[in-house]
């Protein structure tokens, strides 16, 4: 039984195509008209019928109008889900939260609050949809250092208190799947073998990679940049396909590198270059400022110098470029107006 048998066209054309070495529908679509005429010995009108039939047979989402999207009368995969950050100011600025489209990148210098942001997302994602969450678990891929378990417990305690009124009590720590990875091979294994299994069960609503930079910044020599680009694209492509298939947000943490240009002010850019940037859908940068704050609840070893940090939206399809301050305290991150 060949793949072409289900096509609803003249059997004469089908026999012609079966005589050739072409076995997949993809290869037929990839050939140009004259090429097909030559290989199949068909006339050009037959070839266009064939191509048309094949194009129709490829499973693809039906076109819909923007109005359908707006009213959410489209297939579930096209509906945009938003994951709340767990802070009204953040949600306000980010128009509801992290979107379930493509890769959301968080970059910033060390100790700018990236991991804090991610930890908070680990908890909000488990909240019911009515509370801004996605009612699911999270896969947390750790590549830099150990997962900050202590801090997570601290946040969980706070969240348990905050959401004690919920009908069903959430066991926050039961739905966080942590994976420590130290090299590209481990990463490949994880995203090609382990993640699909977890995702297929429908328990996971968020994937966090903290950080992508650690993996791609150190393991490659200067002459291996093409290989690095290939690896990055495969990795990003896989993550994006998860986002698409299961309609879940993907958050990647990235480091920054200094950027030298004529101006004397210090400027940082997210690491990994243009190849990676092209794969990113929304990019946020976190940074420390020198402006100090005095908070009653701040604990010295968490917010080291108690300074205000800033959150910058560099680009996102639905959010304007904005910068706003935020702080990290015992209860997590909070935006300031």
């Amino acid at each position: 039984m060949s793949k072409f048998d289900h096509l609803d066209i003249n059997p004469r054309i089908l026999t012609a195509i079966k005589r050739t070495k072409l076995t997949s529908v993809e290869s037929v679509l990839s050939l140009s008209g004259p090429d097909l005429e030559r290989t199949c010995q068909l006339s050009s009108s037959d070839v266009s019928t064939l191509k048309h039939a094949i194009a129709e047979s490829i499973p693809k989402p039906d076109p819909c109008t923007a109005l359908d999207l707006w009213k959410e009368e489209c297939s579930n995969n096209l509906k945009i889900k938003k994951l709340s950050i767990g802070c009204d100011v953040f949600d306000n600025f980010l128009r509801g939260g992290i979107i379930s489209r493509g890769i959301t990148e968080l970059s910033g210098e060390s100790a700018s609050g990236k991991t804090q942001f991610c930890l908070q997302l680990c908890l909000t994602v488990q909240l019911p949809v009515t509370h801004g969450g996605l009612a699911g678990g999270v896969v947390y891929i750790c590549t830099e250092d150990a997962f900050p378990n202590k801090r997570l417990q601290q946040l969980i305690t706070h969240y348990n208190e905050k959401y004690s009124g919920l009908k069903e009590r959430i066991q926050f720590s039961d739905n966080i799947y942590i994976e420590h990875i130290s090299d590209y091979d481990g990463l490949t294994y994880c995203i090609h073998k382990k993640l699909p299994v977890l995702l297929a069960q429908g328990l996971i609503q968020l994937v966090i990679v903290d950080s992508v930079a650690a993996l791609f910044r150190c393991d490659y020599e200067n002459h291996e940049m093409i290989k690095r680009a290939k690896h990055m694209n495969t990795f990003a492509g896989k993550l994006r396909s998860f986002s698409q298939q299961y309609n879940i947000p993907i958050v990647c943490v990235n480091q920054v590198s200094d950027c030298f240009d004529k101006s004397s002010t210090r400027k940082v850019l997210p690491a990994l270059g243009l190849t990676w940037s092209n794969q990113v859908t929304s990019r946020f940068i976190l940074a420390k400022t020198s402006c100090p704050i005095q908070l009653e609840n701040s604990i010295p070893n968490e917010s080291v110098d108690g300074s205000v940090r800033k959150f910058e939206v560099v680009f996102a399809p639905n959010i304007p470029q904005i910068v706003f301050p935020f702080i990290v305290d015992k209860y997590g991150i909070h935006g300031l107006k």
Partner: protein
Amino acid sequence: MQRELSTYPLGPSLKNKLIQSGFMLVDDVYHLKPSELSRETGLSLEDALEVIKTVTEKDGDPTDRQSKGPKTQSALEILQTEQNQPNIITFCQQIDDMLGGGVPLSKMTEFCGAPGIGKTQMCMQLCVDVQMPKCLGGVEGQAVYIDTEGSFIVERLVDIADATIQHCNFMLKQNQDDVGELKDFTLENVLKGIHYFRCHDYIELLANIQLLPDFLKEHKKVKLVVVDSVAFHFRHDFEDLSLRTRLLTAMAQNFINMATNYQLAIVLTNQMTTKVRSGAGSSGQSHLVPALGESWGHASTIRLILHWVGNVRYALLYKSPSRKEKDVPYQITVGGIRDLIHDEDEEMGADNNKPIKRQKIS
């Protein structure tokens, strides 16, 4: 009839046999019976019948473009049609001026740029603008949006549509025209006029492009086809580069055909890539160039590169058959693409949403 048989849509083996047995022109087979042709050429009776059918049938039908070939037009005629065709304005006066009135119909326009520069915003803006009523210099068409990256966020589109509708109403009121004309230019109708196709891989993209002409036949109002972005699927997991070039060229050909057959504008977006210059003096220097390689550069008629200069967005007209190279600033506001407002008219700049006066109002 002096037309050569080889120009007909016949299978190559048929053509070969015909030519080998000395049948070159239509006249040679025109009055033959299938059985006679079959005897002369050694073709099977069925094939002979098909040859005669193709030759005689298509010949008598003047509406069929395949047999007649494209109609010839004089340069004057083309100029006249082009001048009568409205352009799709971008809402940025300077970009419009640079392009000679906006994004032209029947042509392929490509926007290249680094991530975050506003390619998707530009596409959304054009999808809304193409639906502007004729009385305001619009095209009053519809749009097809082929999304390969998944960055089409409908809530952003609603922002832009709202601002555009507001602006149009404002313009009409200023001119004291009948506002009734804008009855149909509502958010609901604008959203209804944008047909969204999501393509998850390049096969889906190719299939959709293959089927698009049929869709256009059904939806005659479509005047704009956007592909955002053309590069995405072709830039990763694509080992066979010569296949990529072939596919891209074929795709460009399909688009050009659609653009001319249906008088619609094709807008593509493309990513940027780093190119390292080699050779003495400049070794190691790198600069940004549009992705997909040199041969793709020939595909689009008009090519714009969107880039940053400091904190200002600029659009550079990189390739155009009729306009000179130019670099103009623009900005993206809540309402979409707008002119960069200079200090001298700061009172207008205070409110980004405030519509900017455009020239093309009749």
